[in-house]
Structures are given as structure tokens and as C-alpha cells.
């Protein structure tokens, strides 16, 4: 029962981007296309689930005073694994995500979940929390990327969705478009919350 609850809470109710507002840098930088967003989301989810499992396993033997350095080392190790495997198997995606793969280390979502959840809960719930939060992150990233890719390029996942006559708004693919899109999406979320 609680497994399902932990799994689903990250997707809407405690969505890491729209509700907790963590991990803004990768959200804005890698949402230029749905493909990049999915790649980034998957990479972060993998690191999140692995680090949650590991930190939950060692929570009883980790001295309280040095727990943050311990978490950072665990997370950095998994990020290195993801970084090297992506460079080997999907070099194109690795190249377009660039600097933001090693920067998963300092993504607040992962350290935040380690500190707020995996540190206090058992392995099974930590896995559910990791998957849920990871999916919530991927979903939010894809929503932003969908808007930006359709408006800025007329495509969705590289498939043409808008007619040829549509003149793409290049600005949504550039930095200003990222900020403005996310700003309006958050305002929309706030508005929906108020209505309830």
C-alpha cells in the first residue's frame, strides 16, 4: 500500500519541479527538445533510484556528522557511471546534454531526496520514492520540452506536427524562451491550485 503511495506522490502531488521547485538548471537547459528531456530525465532517474537504494542501505552505519559528504560521494559515483555509459552507447545524446550530465551531482532533487527520504525509510520505499520522483522530474521536463519544441521547431520528438506554413518561433528554443515558458507553466499550476 505505502509502496504505491510513495511511487505516485512524486508525479503530481509533490512534483519536484512544479511543486518543490528543485533542479531548475537542468530543467531549463535540457528542455530544448523532447529527446533531450527524456534523456536527461532517464539519467537523473537512474542516479536517483540507485543513490536512494544505496543510501537507504547504509543509513544505519553512516555517522550523522559526515552524512552529507557520504551522500555526495555515493551520488558522484553513480553519476560517473551514467556519464561514461552514455558517452559509450549514446554519444549523440551525451554530446547534446554536455556539461549537464556531470552536473547531475549537484542536482538538488537527488541530494534532497537522500536527505529527506532515503535517510529515514527502508529500501523498498526508497526505491518507490526514487522512481516516483524521477518520473515526476522526467514528466515535468517533457512538458516544458513539448511546448518549446512544438513552438520553436514545429516538431515533437522529431516528428513534424505543425504545417509547413507555420513560422517557428526560434526564441522559445533559446534561453529567454526557457525562462518564460516555465514561468507561465508555474503560474498556470498556481492558478489551478487556487481554483480547487
Amino acid at each position, binding site marked *: 500500500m505505502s509502496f504505491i503511495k510513495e511511487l505516485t506522490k512524486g508525479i503530481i502531488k509533490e512534483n519536484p519541479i512544479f511543486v518543490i521547485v528543485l533542479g531548475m*538548471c537542468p530543467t531549463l537547459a535540457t528542455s530544448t527538445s523532447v529527446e533531450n528531456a527524456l534523456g536527461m530525465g532517464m539519467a537523473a532517474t537512474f542516479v536517483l533510484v540507485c543513490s536512494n537504494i544505496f543510501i537507504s542501505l547504509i543509513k544505519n552505519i553512516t555517522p550523522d556528522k559526515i552524512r552529507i559528504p557520504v551522500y555526495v*560521494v555515493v551520488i558522484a559515483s553513480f553519476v560517473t557511471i551514467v556519464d561514461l555509459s552514455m558517452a559509450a552507447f549514446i554519444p549523440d545524446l551525451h554530446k547534446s546534454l554536455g556539461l549537464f550530465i556531470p552536473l547531475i551531482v549537484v542536482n*538538488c532533487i537527488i541530494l534532497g531526496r537522500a536527505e529527506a527520504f532515503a535517510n529515514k525509510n527502508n529500501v523498498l520505499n526508497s526505491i518507490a520514492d526514487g522512481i516516483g520522483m524521477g518520473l515526476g522530474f522526467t514528466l515535468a521536463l517533457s512538458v516544458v520540452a513539448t511546448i518549446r519544441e512544438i513552438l520553436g521547431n514545429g516538431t515533437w520528438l522529431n516528428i513534424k506536427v505543425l504545417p509547413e506554413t507555420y513560422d517557428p518561433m526560434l526564441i522559445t528554443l533559446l534561453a529567454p524562451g526557457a525562462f518564460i515558458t516555465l514561468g507561465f507553466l508555474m*503560474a498556470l499550476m498556481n492558478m489551478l491550485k487556487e481554483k480547487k
Partner: protein
Amino acid sequence: MGFLGQLFSMAIAAILIQNFVLARFLGLCPYLGVSKKLDSAFGMGMAVIFVMTMASAFCYIIYQYLLVPYGLEYLQTLAFILTIAALVQFVEMVIQKNSPALYKSLGVYLPLITTNCAVLGVAILNITPLADGSRYNFLWSVLNGFLSGVGFTFVLLAMAGIRERLELVDMPKSMRGMPSGLILAGIMALAFYGFMGMKI
């Protein structure tokens, strides 16, 4: 181009053209989180400049003289984040011991800086080969760290100044706080796009 000319072009690039926050999307959490008041934005900016400069220096030394000779480049992420975490902790202790006044104004921001991606970002960018295949040497890495930190502080202060006034504006409730901050950042990024055309 002499040393000063190069320094000038690097400063323009780091502060205006390739600004860390608005063009590279690094360090957004403090940019959106600590930009509500001008004084706290100033404290955060100073702490970031200091840590970015130190981190550039230490990470460069670690990479060049420890990781490269032993063929351990693949451990760079792990080595850098540990260096930065240790450095931040150390700086915090030194400031606390020697200058309580400075500690009072910077203290709360220092632990936050460990997870500021601008710091790890500049350390990784410093050792990434440039367009012509060469890498920054020690001096330029440190200068790059310092100037990128100045660029960060510059936009952080501008943002805080605008947001302080925005507090008084009558706007829809759902736009208050984060959404209006993000749209503001978008307009600022648009303004900074004007510098993109500059050739130096």
C-alpha cells in the same frame, strides 16, 4: 593581443556574452532563491565569487597534477565535488575563526554553495578543451573562475533590485513569487542576447 587585451575580452565574454546564469543556465537555484533582497543577494554574490575563484584554482591543480599523471581523468566529477565540498567547509571554518563579522554576513550562504552548479560547472569548463583544442592554463582558469563569478553576481544584483520593486506591484496572485521571477529572468536573458552579436 597582449595580456590586458585578452583579459578584457575574457571579462566581456564571461560577464555579458556567455553569462553563467542567463546564457549557460548555471547557478539558477541561488539566482531565483536568494534574489528577493538586495543585501542577501550581495552577500551570496561575494561568497560565490570567492568560492568560484578558489575552486577553479584547486580543481585545476588536482586535475593537472593528480588525475592526469595517473590516468584518472574519468574520476573528475568525483574529485571535483569532493574538492569543492572540502574547500567550502574549510573556508567556512577559517572565516568563522578569523572574521566573525564577515562570517555573519556570508555564513548562511556558504553551505549552499557546495550544491551551486555554477561552481562545479566552472571547474569542469576550465579543463574542457576550447574550440581550438587547447586548454586554459592555471592563471586563465583562475581568472575565468573569478570573472564568471562576477558575471553571476552582476545579474543576481540586477535581479534583486528589480524584484524588490516588483513586490509593490499589483499583479495576479498566481503570478507572484516564482512565476514572475522566471518571466523577469526571461526578459533579462532577452536583453543579454543583444550582446551575442558582439565580436571581440
